[in-house]
């Protein structure tokens, strides 16, 4: 009888799932799996830190729509992976994490590099497995990919003790799915679809509120057709940017805490909210008691638990948002587009009268928004844009006109600073032919910038616009607004780190820009370099704040549009 080792089975199972790249860091307990990986066509990217490996898998999954894979050892490696797992759970990113574990004979004995990985990650994964029988490996890996990619996507972890990796099994095929409790609903209920259509027909002030579900379900074409046929203005959440063309006449921008005036206000005045793949996050709703007070809600989501969690829906529809939009378009059939002229005139006047603003004095300090708009112009918007978390992320969301899905990669729900550098590497690995531009802040960047070494060593020529204001800008903004400008613990120092030199030390090209006039040429230069990563440090005004803003827990009827609205 032909047998293979558990380790060989893991690699073979990954190959069977179509995996062509994994991001990882080796170590004691996972070593058996690294040996067959050496002979496999699967490429291994050696991250500098396990958190990096996890975010790379996420960036890859965002950019490609495929399942990202990371592989690390036991103990501290697995605990380092907790942040990317929690991030993937919050933002519904399909990844599979393979972790080594101490031998089953040592489990529970506080062995070297032992951590209770499945226990620790139970609430940071969609599902996880602790494998105690080598025969289970092929099916478990198959199930892990199935669970990660279907329904509401998310992270799945497979924990593999070293003796299980070294044991032998008979490879069987094809793999089985034994998941009696897991049957995601894809089709929307036909009666609900008809009810929804009726409500849409009778609405006078509809707003389509679309989120990350549109991207995950590859439903952006459906969304555009649906919006045009129903003549309803569209707002997209931070996670949904790119799911609807940013230059479309019906697009109002992002709603919420740092949303555009038009998007936030349209929701407040709407009589119907068509919520597609969204979860009524607090950054969108502000105080939910005052959110969309006049609107009936049609809520479409693949996760039934999201419907009614924050806001009761008059018409709940559980299903894949792409499939449900297809059904709605079929049901809409030949109805003419409703005449919402009065409503559309209103929302468009809000948009025209309240653009996102900033002032760049040609001789004054460099403004971060100017850098981002210049980047948009110089790239023609043709790039995959990745960000970290903080002010730079909001400025990018507000000033970049995302027009296609999977071109905007950031950490929304968990707000994971440090997401940027490794996610950009993962995105470049998934889309090597595309320009991948990371817009990062100095605080966020310094949480994972060791992965620059991964980018240059592994040949991922990402580009980085480092918005250096020398502070934890979002924290500072809140301290300015709500804590009497007492900057407790938020100052990093703009000159502490020589970022171009840091980049050069890690095999990248480094540049520094301090005046508005240097911005364009530096970006042009970065776009001409494709054989190694490039970092441009933009030294910007630390006092610049993100506006519009609705203070946390406030009503979305009270939007601070700019510094002039503050007393």
């Amino acid at each position, binding site marked *: 009888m032909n047998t293979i080792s558990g380790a060989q089975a893991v690699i073979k199972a990954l190959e069977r799932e179509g995996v062509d790249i994994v991001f990882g860091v080796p170590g004691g307990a996972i070593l058996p799996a690294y040996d067959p990986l050496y002979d496999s066509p699967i490429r291994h990217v050696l991250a500098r830190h396990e958190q990096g490996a996890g975010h790379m898998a996420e960036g890859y999954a965002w950019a490609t729509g495929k399942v990202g894979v990371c592989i690390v050892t036991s103990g501290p490696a697995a605990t380092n992976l907790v942040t990317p797992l929690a991030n993937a759970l919050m933002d519904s990113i399909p990844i599979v994490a393979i972790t080594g574990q101490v031998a089953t004979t040592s489990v529970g004995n506080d062995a070297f590099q032992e951590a209770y990985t499945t226990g620790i990650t*139970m*609430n940071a994964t969609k599902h996880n497995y602790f494998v105690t029988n080598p025969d289970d490996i092929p099916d478990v890996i198959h199930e892990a990919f199935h669970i990660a990619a279907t329904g509401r996507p998310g992270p799945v972890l497979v924990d593999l003790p070293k003796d299980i990796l070294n044991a032998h099994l008979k490879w069987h095929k094809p793999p089985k799915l034994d998941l*009696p*409790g*897991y049957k995601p609903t894809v089709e929307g209920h036909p009666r609900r679809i008809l009810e929804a259509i009726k409500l849409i027909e009778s609405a006078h002030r509809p707003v389509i509120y679309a989120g990350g579900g549109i991207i995950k379900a590859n439903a952006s074409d459906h969304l555009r057709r649906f919006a045009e046929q129903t003549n309803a203005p569209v707002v997209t959440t931070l996670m949904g940017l790119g799911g609807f063309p940013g230059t479309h006449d019906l697009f109002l921008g992002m709603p919420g805490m740092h949303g555009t005036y038009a998007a936030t206000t349209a929701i407040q005045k709407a009589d119907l909210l068509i919520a597609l793949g969204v979860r009524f996050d607090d950054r969108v709703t502000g105080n939910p008691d005052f959110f969309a007070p006049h609107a009936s809600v049609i809520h479409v989501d693949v996760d039934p*638990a999201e419907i009614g969690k924050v806001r009761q829906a008059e018409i709940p529809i559980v299903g894949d948002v792409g499939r449900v939009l297809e059904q709605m378009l079929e049901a809409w059939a030949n109805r003419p587009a409703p005449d919402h002229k009065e409503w559309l005139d209103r929302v468009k006047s809000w948009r025209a009268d309240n653009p996102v603003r900033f002032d760049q004095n040609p001789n004054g300090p460099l403004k971060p928004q100017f850098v981002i708009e210049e980047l948009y112009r110089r790239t023609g918007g043709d790039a995959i844009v990745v960000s970290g978390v903080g002010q730079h992320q909001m400025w990018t969301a507000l000033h970049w006109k995302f027009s296609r899905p999977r071109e905007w990669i950031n950490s929304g729900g968990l707000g994971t600073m440090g997401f940027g550098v490794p996610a950009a590497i993962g995105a470049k690995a998934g889309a090597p032919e595309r320009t991948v531009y990371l817009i990062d802040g100095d605080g966020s960047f310094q949480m994972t910038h060791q992965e620059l070494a991964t980018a240059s060593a592994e040949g991922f020529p990402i580009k980085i616009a480092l918005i250096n204001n020398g502070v934890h800008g979002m924290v500072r903004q809140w301290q300015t607004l709500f804590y009497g400008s007492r900057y407790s613990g938020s100052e990093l120092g703009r000159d502490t780190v020589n970022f171009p030199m840091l980049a050069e030390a890690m095999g990248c090209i480094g540049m520094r820009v301090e005046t508005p006039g240097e911005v364009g040429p530096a970006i042009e230069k970065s776009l001409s370099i494709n054989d190694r990563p490039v970092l441009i440090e933009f030294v910007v005004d630390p006092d610049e704040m993100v506006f519009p803003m609705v203070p946390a827990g406030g009503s979305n009827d009270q939007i601070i549009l700019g510094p002039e609205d503050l007393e």
Partner: protein
Amino acid sequence: MNQHTLSVLVENKAGVLARVSSLLARRGFNIHSLAVGPTADEGISRMTIVVDAPELEQVKKQLHKLINVVKITELDRATAVEREISLVRVSTDGQKRSDVLEVATLFDAVAVDVGVSTIMFLVTGSPDKVNDFVELVRPYGIADLVKSGRVALARDQKSRKLRAI
């Protein structure tokens, strides 16, 4: 806070109890009691969970997200038989013994261990009945008490009208 009884069928796999209890804790639902045991199908276990929650919709939906949860049924007195077992050691110092035994007789509680100054009773029945027994013997002094937690099973819906309870 309202109590709700959930009958949850789960895959009989290691760690499922931890997943269920951890999820309830994470989402802020308080477990009043939880009883778990095998079903006739050896691959499936049944958990009877009594939770304190203002409403059950979120609890059910969140539990359903667990991959190992196969089926969830909400039960109540009208649609299900609910039972509980309790062992109660009651103090029977001095003249109290006959009084205690009289209460026990009314509740069909069985003396399962008789000591010099205590008697342990086994009482079984609906949760209300078990509670009532405990409250009635409390004045005599409860030395020790354990409850099984509620177990429940849905009634046969088709023949419900025929059944007198």
